[in-house]
């Protein structure tokens, strides 16, 4: 379906990633924003506060991030596309109700403009160290979807993508920005509204007496019922059966959790977005994402000028991890160099997927800045020399 043109600021803009993200959400039909100010994500909230009332939407500054996270779940059940944004400690506070969104199968979008941690860490400086937290941070076993943009334009584009994936799979979807991308100002082209394709909400076509809130369809995702229309459905954070009623047993738990994971895992090929450059026949493949992927570019160029066969794999979808593709590449390359602003997170996934078929090198960084491209170049040289 086409988007509502009222939220689409078609044209060429010179804005930062935070503002572009807010515009992407509005273009995707997001009409509810609940959030709590926290650097470096606050500009997203400010843009919403300014813009969303003009398109008939709701902005509310909640009392904390726990409230923000669950308010967007409530708004989503009310039929609105809803999102929040946060950073650092705020993301930690959202974990509880991220689990609720997973369990209730609520389409929502959460933007994390990553900063340095742990704890209060570096409020105004960058980091890429919430990558395991976004995947595993709430208790219990589950899968989510997380995308990672590298520019303001991608903040716009992939926010729309996040909303579409959230609706399609009824799952919280995360846009893992970072302070650099959030505060970087570049040209952003917002297309005409009729060029923006949206995933419609999966409402049931069954009458209330035949509807079961958690009976999955063919792709393992159940259809929603509209609130206020006589369906009188029940939903809970407890383990539940297809009626949505709590059932405290391993017989209910196993199939439910399996389905929550499989609806993402078995659809991974449709969810995963990657960018590859000269990976076929490469001796060394650099793997990176977000701002780090941009810092890799001069290092890779230098290494190629030196005659090294260097490929580049940019992860746009961080979760589900591109396990199958990394394993394929591992068969025909000597080594991977994983460049990320942490001391070893996605590198574990690359190692796991490579299964010892290729060496895996971490080019890490503690946060607060980006890599010096010379450090990446040195790691590529080291990997190629082995």
């Amino acid at each position, binding site marked *: 379906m086409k988007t509502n043109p009222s939220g689409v600021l078609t044209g060429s803009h010179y804005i930062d990633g935070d503002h572009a993200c807010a515009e992407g959400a509005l273009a995707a039909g997001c009409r509810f924003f609940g959030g709590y100010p926290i650097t470096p994500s606050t500009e997203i909230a400010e843009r919403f506060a300014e813009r969303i009332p003009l398109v008939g939407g709701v902005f509310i500054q909640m009392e904390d991030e726990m409230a923000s996270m669950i308010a967007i779940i409530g708004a989503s059940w009310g039929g609105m596309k809803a999102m929040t944004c946060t950073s650092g400690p705020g993301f930690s506070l959202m974990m509880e109700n991220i689990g609720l969104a997973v369990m209730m199968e609520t389409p929502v979008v959460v933007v994390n403009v990553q900063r340095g941690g742990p704890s209060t860490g570096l409020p105004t400086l960058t980091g890429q160290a919430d990558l395991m937290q976004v995947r595993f941070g709430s208790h219990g076993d589950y899968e989510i979807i997380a995308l990672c943009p590298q520019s303001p334009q991608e903040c716009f584009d992939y926010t729309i993508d996040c909303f579409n994936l959230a609706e399609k799979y009824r799952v919280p979807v995360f846009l893992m920005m970072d302070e650099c991308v959030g505060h970087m100002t570049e040209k952003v082209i917002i297309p005409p509204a009729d060029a923006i394709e949206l995933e419609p909400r999966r409402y049931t076509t069954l009458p209330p007496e035949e509807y079961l809130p958690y009976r999955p369809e063919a792709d393992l995702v159940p259809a929603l019922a509209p609130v206020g229309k006589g369906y*009188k459905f029940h939903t809970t954070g407890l383990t539940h059966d297809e009626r949505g009623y709590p059932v405290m047993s391993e017989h209910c738990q196993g199939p439910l959790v399996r389905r929550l994971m499989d609806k993402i895992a078995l659809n991974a090929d449709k969810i995963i977005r990657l960018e590859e450059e000269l990976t076929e026949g490469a001796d060394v493949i650099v793997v990176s994402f977000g701002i780090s992927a941009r810092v890799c570019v001069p290092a890779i160029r230098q290494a190629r000028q030196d005659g090294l066969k260097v490929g580049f794999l940019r992860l746009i979808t961080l979760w589900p991890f591109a396990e199958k593709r990394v394993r394929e590449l591992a068969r025909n390359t000597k080594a991977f160099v994983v460049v990320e602003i942490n001391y070893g997170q996605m590198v574990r996934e690359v190692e796991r997927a490579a299964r010892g078929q290729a060496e895996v090198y971490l080019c890490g960084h503690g946060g607060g800045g980006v890599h010096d491209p010379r450090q990446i170049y040195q790691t590529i040289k080291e990997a190629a020399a082995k």
Partner: protein
Amino acid sequence: MTDALATEHAHPMTRLLRMDRMPHIWCPSCGIGSAVSAFAAALEKAEKDLNKVSIVSGIGCSGRVAGYLKLDSFHTTHGRAIPFATGLKLARPDLEVVVFSGDGDLFSIGGNHFIHAARRNIDILVICVNNFNYAMTGGQVAPTTPCLANASTMPHGNFEHPFNLPFLAASCGSSYVAR
């Protein structure tokens, strides 16, 4: 029992209850059932369009109310029923949104959400069943437990002072408070 007798003895609020979920989890003599009956009777008496009433609960014995009422019903996380209801109500102002939960849920872990909801006054109804302790988990002390009362986590008597819930609600800006 014959069908006629069963009908005669059916709960008068059957139309509003999820009878397929009975029996409920509440203990004999617990007051939550009475509170639910009173709420259901009020919905009937006020001739509310039941399609337009949503109920939101948190966690605990009273948190199970959402699961027994035949309404669009949301059983959320501990303490967070009010901010869930806030999102729902703002998205759908045409709905009557009711939060039904307990004292521990609403005033301890959810206390911050309660005072801010009272301050905002966005037209949601919060019903608190106050049993002065955490009953579902075996009687731990709550912010409503009277001074000197024994609780499993206050075995030597509660030395803290409880909240006065109506005063708290009124002081934060609630437009209507009743006990």
